[in-house]
């Protein structure tokens, strides 16, 4: 990675440890995200990538370690400060998380109505601009249930963009979409980056998406980073899990640790 000065770093994660009870889910995570880049967190199911995302957006507090956003310690903020910091972040949830009883336009307008003193007439125009941006101009009066899966994702993106955030977090943006719609969404993520110099943090396990959008890839395995850098740098890593992931090879179930397996069945040490 090229050398960066401090102003270029928008997110910094230092020695992050996250536990669920006694179980360590993330163990000593360290990385930096540069302003304006698309940073992809990649890994298989259960590797801890969604947990990492929840910590980055402040939905969970870590066991230890720090997350700095624009140089400020996000993990040390009180609730009010975190709410304030979150206004500069947008979140695209995996299932879009649109309110089903509200129109698409009202969903997009909601953060503006909740967090700003803008007049309703200004909010209405802003909402239309955001819907145009994601290709949903004219769909403001539709209910989420009347949209296709890809359109819902785009509506979710429009809502995430409502407050003109500095950073957008995406949780599995292409999950459940056909390849054409998924490619369209990848294009949209790139467009947002180019247009607004937006920083994007994308959690995914979709390799095609990674190829299209990633500037930097952070690969997780069992809660640890096993690769960090440009996609080509990761490809060149001589590390079995990374190679297995890129080659899409299934785990060999015959290679089990028999002692560990027995322990898991009986609880005997």
């Amino acid at each position, binding site marked *: 990675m090229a050398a960066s000065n401090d102003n270029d770093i928008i997110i910094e994660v230092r020695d992050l440890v996250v536990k669920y009870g006694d179980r360590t889910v993330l163990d000593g995570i360290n990385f930096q995200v540069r302003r304006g880049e698309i940073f992809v967190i990649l890994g298989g199911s259960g590797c801890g990538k969604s947990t990492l995302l929840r910590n980055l957006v402040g939905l969970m507090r870590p066991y230890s370690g720090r997350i700095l956003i624009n140089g400020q310690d996000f993990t040390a903020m009180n609730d009010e400060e975190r709410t304030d910091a979150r206004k500069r972040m947008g979140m695209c949830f995996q299932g879009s998380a649109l309110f089903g009883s509200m129109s698409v336009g009202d969903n997009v307008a909601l953060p503006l109505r909740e967090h700003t003193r803008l007049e309703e007439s200004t909010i209405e*125009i802003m909402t239309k601009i955001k819907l145009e*941006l994601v290709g949903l101009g004219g769909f403001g009066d539709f209910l989420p249930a009347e949209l296709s899966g890809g359109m819902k994702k785009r509506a979710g993106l429009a809502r995430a963009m409502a407050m003109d955030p500095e950073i957008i977090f995406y949780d599995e943006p292409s999950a459940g979409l056909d390849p054409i719609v998924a490619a369209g969404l990848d294009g949209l993520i790139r467009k947002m980056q180019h247009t607004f110099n937006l920083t994007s943090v994308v959690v995914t396990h979709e390799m095609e998406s990674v190829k299209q959008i990633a500037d930097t890839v952070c690969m997780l395995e069992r809660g640890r980073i096993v690769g960090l850098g440009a996609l080509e740098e990761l490809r060149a890593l001589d590390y079995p899990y990374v190679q297995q992931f890129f080659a899409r090879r299934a785990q060999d179930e015959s290679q089990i640790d028999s002692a560990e397996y027995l322990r898991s069945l009986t609880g005997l040490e």
Partner: protein
Amino acid sequence: MALELLSVEQDGQWVIRAKGEVDLYASPDLRAAILKAVSDPRGGVAVDLSQVEYMDSSGVATLVEGLKSAGQRKVSFSLLAPSQAVMKVLQLSRLDSVFDIRESL
């Protein structure tokens, strides 16, 4: 940088000079200045955007509101010498062709 606004009468029309950042928090002030000028327009209303360092979509929406309000009153409404930062968001929102954009009055 906060937004500074100055409304002056020049060559028979209102010129609103904006300096600084037009964001979610400052846009209501720009809106108030524009709507006040449009309600007493003299020969027209122009918004000087040459010293605007940052504009988000709330600023763009505010300019659209000004254009709409001026249109309803049949008042001329123009943008003067938008900075690069402003032009970029206008272009991205595909609104650069909607406004009367001039280099000077």
